[in-house]
């Protein structure tokens, strides 16, 4: 198990390249795409390059429903190994929903149904024999709203490693906790109050605590849902630094409302609109030469 994980992390030495999608003519796409009729699934196509060579995770034709309401419509998207994928889009377009379906967190919402295929290292995570415990340990998550456990700061970070048996001695555990807090940029602020409740921290500190908690189990993929929405620019910069560092070892998918942040930390960017994946591509291309009108509207601030 442990060995397998190491292999996964280090096997992908080769840098992946994005493959251009056959659909390259934006003017044609524009004509066909009417986002107001998003119930009609077949008449839209993501433009740009949703697929990569060496994908860590890939989604194919994913639909997500909340009861009758469809929140994600036929999304196909790859997340490359050791890359940071940014997801942007107007509020309510389904970014969080899509992110949650990547580690089956949607399972705990009873009305939520996911169809299509999502693979992690080429294994379908929605296959019946897939254990969500292992999946969520491999694909960690930082939620949109900070949600520390109502326990001590130490316990918040130590919980994951403890239940997965990652530390065998108290010293090892202390090491993991300290290291995770340092990487999340929180250690200096809390090192004297590790036994204080995590819920007593400020919103931004709580968010960094949640980041520390997620990285403490060293997942292979980290899903971050607006990790910096509650942070000041300095703390955000620290988190961005962390993300930059983490991508050496991990694969990261993050949702953000800050275009600057997406531009700074991500390699690829995906633009969602009303449940549809409109455009994906290299970050610099998306922000400099967006091909879809909706993308352009959004990033230039005319829409969203």
């Amino acid at each position: 198990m442990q060995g397998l994980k190491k292999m996964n992390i280090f096997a992908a030495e080769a840098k992946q390249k994005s493959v251009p999608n056959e659909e390259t003519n934006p003017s044609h796409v524009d004509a066909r795409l009417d986002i107001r009729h998003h119930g009609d699934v077949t008449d839209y196509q993501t433009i740009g390059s949703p697929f990569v060579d060496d994908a860590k995770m890939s989604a194919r034709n994913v639909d997500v429903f909340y009861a009758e309401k469809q929140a994600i419509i036929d999304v196909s998207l790859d997340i490359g190994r050791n890359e940071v994928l940014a997801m942007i889009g107007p509020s309510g377009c389904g970014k969080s929903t899509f992110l949650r379906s990547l580690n089956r967190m949607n399972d705990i919402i009873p009305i939520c149904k996911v169809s299509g295929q999502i693979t992690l290292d080429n294994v379908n995570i929605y296959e019946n024999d897939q254990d969500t415990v292992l999946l969520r340990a491999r694909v960690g998550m930082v939620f949109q709203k900070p949600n520390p456990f109502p326990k001590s700061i130490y316990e918040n970070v130590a919980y994951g490693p403890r239940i997965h048996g990652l530390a065998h001695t108290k010293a090892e555990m202390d090491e993991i906790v300290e290291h995770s807090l340092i990487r999340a940029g929180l250690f200096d602020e809390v090192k004297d109050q590790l036994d204080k409740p995590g819920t007593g921290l400020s919103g931004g500190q709580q968010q960094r605590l949640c980041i520390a908690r997620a990285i403490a189990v060293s997942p292979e993929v980290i899903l971050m849902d607006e990790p910096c929405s509650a942070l000041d620019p300095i703390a955000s910069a620290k988190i961005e630094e962390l993300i930059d560092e983490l991508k050496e070892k991990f694969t990261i998918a993050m949702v953000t409302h800050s275009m600057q942040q997406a531009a700074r930390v991500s390699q690829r960017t995906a633009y969602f609109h009303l449940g549809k994946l409109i455009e994906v591509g290299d970050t610099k291309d998306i922000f400099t030469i967006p091909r879809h009108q909706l993308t352009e509207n959004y990033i230039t601030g005319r829409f969203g």
Partner: protein
Amino acid sequence: MNNMNKESNYKTTAAIQASLKKRHAAERRFQWYGRSAVLTGFIFLCILMVDIVGKGSPAFTQHFIKVDVIFDRETLGIHASATPADIAQADYSAAIKSSLRTMFPDVSTRVGKKSLYRLISVGAQYSLRDMVVENPALIGTTREIWLLAHSEAGSYLKNQVSKDSPESERKIKDIQIKWLETLREEGRTESRFNRSFFTSGDSREPEMAGIKAALYGSFYTLLVTFLLAFPIGVMAAVYLEEFAPRNRLTDLIEININNLAAVPSIVFGLLGLAVFINFFELPRSAPLVGGIVLALITLPTIIITSRAAIGAVSPSIYQAAMGVGASKLQTVVHHVLPVAMPGILTGSIIGMAQALGETAPLLMIGMVAFIMDVPSGVTDPATVLPVQIFLWADSPERGFTEKTSAAIMVLMGFLIIMNALAVFLRKRFELK
């Protein structure tokens, strides 16, 4: 455009100001309703407490009378060659009687003597016996000894009986009052803390009756109740709330649990009698059966409150735990239960308090028997505090009236301790 905005702003302000007075008045009125509701409840509580404490507090003292006891061999019936067993069986009552006669030599009639003997509790002979058994050297001597007063005499000494009321309306006779006054003047009466109220079981004589047996009975019964109802109730709640699929069957179970909470408790008593005593042949009058029956009564309360407490746990805690890869069971045990624990404990304590005060079902399973001995386990015959209160309240002797109130005070003390425990545990869980 700008002007229009300004105008409408003024309008809004004016409209709000017009309604402000009314809104504030409504709020003040509501606060007063609330305050008067709280005050009414508080007044009733105070009346109840003052009444009970006023009636019950005399029970915590009892009067003793100093008697020059003559340990005469002949009256006691102890021969020179008596064994310790003989000494234990000697006639100490006769010794008390003859000592009293010596102290009041002018009493000659049979009725007069009988009244005289009734100054001292019939239990006094046993304390004399214990004294002599421990120290046989007393035999043949005369000692000043404080003997427990009879409950009627004690009642007079506590000034609960008015001398001026007609003799026929009180149990204590004029002649007895005269003797008691003499004793009081001679400094031969004394009020002491009533230790035996806490150290002895029930008795036919009010001055000797205590609540120890009932306390132990209640303790054992509640122990059985808690050990059964708490784990079963919490586990049922966890399963129903977290793991059970939502379908017809679980809906049916839920409705039935809610219905059970409303079933009169005496029905559970009948069930206990039919099932546990008649069918399974468990011992009658025992805390074991009482505890099982009370567990059945408290289970619905515990399940319903625990489910509510578990259901109120924020979904973000589930997300947080499952997000780091905790299994469902780990999520529930490590995170949900600790957060829900204060609510679960509150529900359980309410259930246990309900069980502590329950009388009717216990009458059905025979816990109403007259029991003097302190039970030493869950299968010994026992009674419980509320049943003891019921029994004493039913007794005609005035000495039992104050015992009833005193037992109610003890029962309430128990409740306060249980609630304090709940608060303490809640604090502990919230700290973690």
